[in-house]
């Protein structure tokens, strides 16, 4: 996920090790405590609206999702969806640049946007008396962004995004791993084969015409969902939403071509030299996206394999053999595709070759025997608490409701997710382990510069070369 503002470095580190794009599946517990009251409807122009009232704190979250992400980009224009996200903060037809921040952060609230492979979102959290302001801001950029867009604005944000790329990827140890893995997992031209942040060259190429065409197709109300969650009167909110959004014209229907799951004909063994002192091992298997039911047992499997000290990989590698200082396993799923990834940080005296063998040994055993009843129970026991804690945040609730609506046509999908996760059996987990963790896979070793011999099975590993971070400021 790529943001307009910064992600805290600490958070970014946690993400790379454990759970990058995993959807929030920490969904509830006792069946009666799981509830987010909401109502949903559509405006005549196709805009989906979801309202959920909560008076606990006098604030409101306004959140708009557009069903467009980096997978909708064309090769040669990668990074475009996210660059566009930045452009959305530069002012619109009736609202000058700067007003947006003033009416959110400047009144004690906040705003941000984020882009994934699948969707782009924009939100404001504001004191409840600024609800109308937020609807005014969101409707104006949904309807009138292009009225004031010019090359100068585009170029300024292009430089900011290039700096985001430098900061979060190029100048970051292990920062290019996700890019390398995506390019290796999917065939050239596959919509998930490039990173959300895009390439430096492509970012330089994006033209004003590209921006306009992209906006007209994807930023129409019929491709968007508006969520309002928090301290407000729903009768008034509905009137205000009608007032600000009804006259925005409906756009063309967005085609959604089916996207092939990742599939490797043969396993790939790669080595990448980075400005690091500690090597790392990454293993990835192609799995399924979050709309397939196998995503539930795969997610449960991830918390049986890592996360607690008695999880299988953690116990074996970090505690018993002590080959590793850290290990993480997670099912990273998007709308159409998914991967199961294991990441290992070695202790200095141990090699990546040893670590790979140790990971394989744990996984072979797990495939053969499946989880115990207690492992399964432990993996599910945290669901209630994490769901209840998510209910404390207006923004978190809005994201859950909108995500369900956009990807499943059901804002109440969180409930289904919860039930399906609780229903996962030991046999389900054993089945997905035996089905996915035996597939052809990618083994990537990241090693210090000049130390390719430190790769796992170095002689069989193919060297990955990445273009260096392209220099060149704005012209």
């Amino acid at each position, binding site marked *: 996920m790529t943001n307009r503002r910064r992600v805290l470095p600490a958070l970014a580190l946690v993400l790379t090790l454990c759970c990058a794009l995993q959807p929030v599946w920490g969904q509830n517990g006792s069946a009666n405590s799981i509830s987010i009251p909401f109502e949903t409807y559509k405006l005549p122009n196709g805009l989906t609206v979801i309202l959920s009232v909560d008076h606990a704190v006098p604030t409101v979250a306004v959140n708009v999702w557009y069903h467009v992400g980096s997978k909708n980009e064309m090769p040669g224009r990668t990074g475009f969806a996210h660059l566009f996200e930045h452009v959305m903060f530069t002012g619109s037809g009736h609202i000058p640049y700067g007003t947006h921040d003033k009416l959110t952060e400047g009144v004690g609230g906040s705003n941000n946007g984020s882009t994934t492979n699948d969707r782009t979102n924009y939100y404001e959290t504001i004191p409840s*008396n600024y609800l109308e302001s937020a609807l005014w801001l969101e409707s104006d950029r949904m309807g009138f962004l292009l009225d004031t867009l010019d090359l100068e604005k585009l170029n300024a944000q292009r430089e900011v995004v290039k700096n985001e790329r430098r900061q979060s990827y190029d100048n970051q140890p292990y920062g290019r791993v996700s890019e390398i893995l995506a390019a290796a997992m999917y065939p050239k031209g596959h919509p998930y084969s490039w990173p959300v942040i895009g390439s430096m060259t492509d970012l330089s190429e994006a033209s004003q015409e590209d921006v306009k065409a992209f906006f007209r197709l994807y930023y129409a109300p019929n491709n968007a969902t508006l969520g309002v969650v928090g301290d407000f009167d729903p009768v008034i909110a509905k009137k205000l939403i009608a*007032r600000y959004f009804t006259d925005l014209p409906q756009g063309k229907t967005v085609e959604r071509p089916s996207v092939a799951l990742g599939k490797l004909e043969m396993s790939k063994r790669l080595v990448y030299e980075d400005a690091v002192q500690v090597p790392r091992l990454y293993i990835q298997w192609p799995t399924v996206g979050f709309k397939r039911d196998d995503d539930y047992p795969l997610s449960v499997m991830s918390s049986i394999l890592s996360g607690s000290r008695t999880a299988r990989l953690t116990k074996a590698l970090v505690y018993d053999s002590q080959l590793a200082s850290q290990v993480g396993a997670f099912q990273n799923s998007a709308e159409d595709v998914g991967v199961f990834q294991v990441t290992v940080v070695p202790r200095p005296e141990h090699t990546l070759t040893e670590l790979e063998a140790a990971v394989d040994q744990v996984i072979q055993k797990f495939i053969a025997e499946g989880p115990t009843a207690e492992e399964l129970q432990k993996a599910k026991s945290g669901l209630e608490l994490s769901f209840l804690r998510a209910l404390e945040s207006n923004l978190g609730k809005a994201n859950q409701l909108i995500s369900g609506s956009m990807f499943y046509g059901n804002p109440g999908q969180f409930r289904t997710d919860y039930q399906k996760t609780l229903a996962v059996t030991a046999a389900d987990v054993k089945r997905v382990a035996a089905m996915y963790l035996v597939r052809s896979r990618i083994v990537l070793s990241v090693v210090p510069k000049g130390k390719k011999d430190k790769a796992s099975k170095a002689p069989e590993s193919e060297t990955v070369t990445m273009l260096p971070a392209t220099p060149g400021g704005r012209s």
Partner: protein
Amino acid sequence: MNRQRPHIAFATALLITLASVASLAQQPLDRTKAPTPGANPKLTVPAWTTQQLSNGATLIVSQRRGLPLVSFNITLVGGSNQFEPAGKRGVAALTASMLTEGTKSKTGDQLSDALQLLGTNINAGVGGEEGSIGFVSTRKNFDATLAILADMMLNSTFPADALDRLRARTLVNLTQAKDQPVAIGGQVFAKILYGADHPYGQRTTEASVKAITRDDVVAFSKTYFQPGRAIITVVGDVTPLSAKASVEKGLAAWTKGGEKPAFDYTKLPELQTAKIYLVDKPGAAQSVFNIGLPGPPRNTPDYFAIQVMNTILGGMFQSRLNANIREQKGYSYGVNSGFTYGKGPGAFRAGGSIFSGKTDAALVEFMKELNGIVGERPITDEEIKVAKDSLIQSLPQRFASVNATSNAITSLVVQGLPNDYYQTYANNIAAVTKEDLMRVAKRYVDIKHLAIVIVGDRAKIEEPLKATGIAPITHIDIEGNPVSGGSAPSSSN
């Protein structure tokens, strides 16, 4: 005050309704006009009770209805700066980690399994001036989780092999931090500002971690986890009565001892005239900036004026620094400024990650904005209004969850602030004058004594930085020590 709350909330709702209806009546819609907001919602600060437990700990309880959640936290006043012996930096963090490694009756695995089945996690950590151990649980698992916490805090066995494993992990983390330009920048900045003798300038090193023995850990644990310096905060689906009963029972074995430490810090090194401290990071795509100097402690009477001043300078997205360096110039993904507050002289710092090719230009802009806030670019009434509104109206967010509420209440006690701090916050911010802002800017953004620490590719940035003429350049390594000779690029890796 509690009794008034529903009344105020009702009045606010009515005002909003009236304002919004007024706007709805306007026809047709004029999109060029920003909607007029209704009156600001009244702040409702949660109420809490304070009790003294028989073991000397302070118990704070705040009841919060709604969700069946409880946040429990023991905060210990004083941290690694007060309790770590010389040469043993890191023993506090290692001890906190060791609490999960086993007790007299349970192995580390058994503790972990028990917590997983309760669906929660106990977090322990010790910072520079305070430490904490706590959790958030469902109401029904509160007592059972508290029992495990008590066992970990009071009966840990600190196995030697676990210490070796955690030490090894810490050493790997320290090695990884050497590749991380942002981590290097932060460490070097602290070392330059405070020197090696001041606790604020010290950090955990390979040598200090290697020097820590099991005896050190046991001794630290015995000395540190004492009720005489503890504030126990319970927020959520509990009453003061039920919480007290649970805590008295759960922590019955925690007997009297300890007291709050004095926060006597050694004198700061003499302020140096402004200098650029350059740490070489060959091939770096960005230069990491940390610019600043030691500032005031949290109890400074200038606190509110500083908050408003900093919000204008670099506390928000549209603050002067980010509006210029990111939004107008495009040199960075984001820059900001802030004050670190504690019992001692926390730092004023401005900085961010800058595209290597614009390192010199960005420094010129940083200096322009810092000089601006101290007088070259007068602060406008509009800037003051936005900064004050932003600070005052963000207050409700501090009570948005059980955990946030717990932190908000506890910090008052730890920092010695008055009980009505949040109720009087708006008035204190509102009372700040333009003259106050000028005065605190001049005093704390002390241009003549800024340390300008830049981690970046020396071969690319040194000459352009020199050409700015802003300050002389000193070369230092990633530990903050001078690089001998200072002419040949160092190889820090």
